[in-house]
């Protein structure tokens, strides 16, 4: 059997705690539509910034991602129907009109790929997504405040119940 030092055991327990806490937050928060939308906006922002970052390298893989994203935008769009920004889809810039990424390709062609064209739709999308993320964070704060209030109001009972399953050594 593997012998583990107290430091390793302590670190493993701490990591397990972090994973549980992260899962808890995600599960709790995803039950709230505003927080769910904020989560989607956050993931979309990370992905868009990733594509934009790659697009900074002339002739690099970012060019391909940029074109794929622009094509996906046109393919996914149903004429006359506004895409739903609360759902994560292949269209990473649902609030940006389809002509914006294509128009931003012009300076890229002129500069021989030096201009990071995908940064334009990314910034326009972020302009829409940042308020969503802020609203979601505010909502998440309210949920946590509510949980804290519930705990303080029922502290003795909750502490006893925790102690029943996780007795302090």
């Amino acid at each position: 059997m593997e012998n583990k030092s107290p430091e390793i055991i302590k670190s493993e327990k701490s990591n397990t705690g972090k994973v549980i806490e992260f899962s808890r937050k995600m599960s709790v928060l995803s039950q709230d539509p505003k927080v769910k939308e904020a989560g989607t906006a956050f993931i979309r922002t990370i992905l868009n910034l990733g594509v934009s970052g790659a697009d900074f390298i002339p002739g690099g893989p970012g060019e391909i991602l940029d074109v794929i994203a622009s094509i996906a935008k046109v393919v996914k769009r149903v004429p006359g129907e506004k895409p739903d920004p609360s759902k994560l889809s292949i269209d990473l810039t649902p609030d940006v009109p389809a002509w914006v990424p294509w128009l931003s390709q012009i300076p890229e062609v002129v500069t021989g790929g030096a201009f990071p064209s995908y940064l334009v739709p990314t910034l326009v999308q972020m302009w829409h997504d940042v308020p969503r993320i802020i609203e979601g964070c505010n909502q998440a704060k309210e949920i946590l405040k509510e949980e804290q209030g519930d705990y303080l109001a029922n502290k003795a009972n909750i502490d006893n119940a925790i102690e029943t399953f996780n007795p302090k050594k």
Partner: protein
Amino acid sequence: MNKKKALKILIEHSFLLSREIKEKLFLKIETMSEDQINTLGKFLAQEKSKAIESFDETQKQYEEIIAELTSFKK
């Protein structure tokens, strides 16, 4: 405190479970085996302990994110 009562309290005050799931679990508690009660109880107890420990830190993290995003928007 007996384990069934403790589990009921943890379910009632869990912010992890939806109302529908809580109702289903309340109905099942009486027929749960001791192992099932222990497993669910330990998980909910650990989850609640972690939440209690990190209330202030989590609030602070959200405030920091909001402050950063607000300055970006300006």
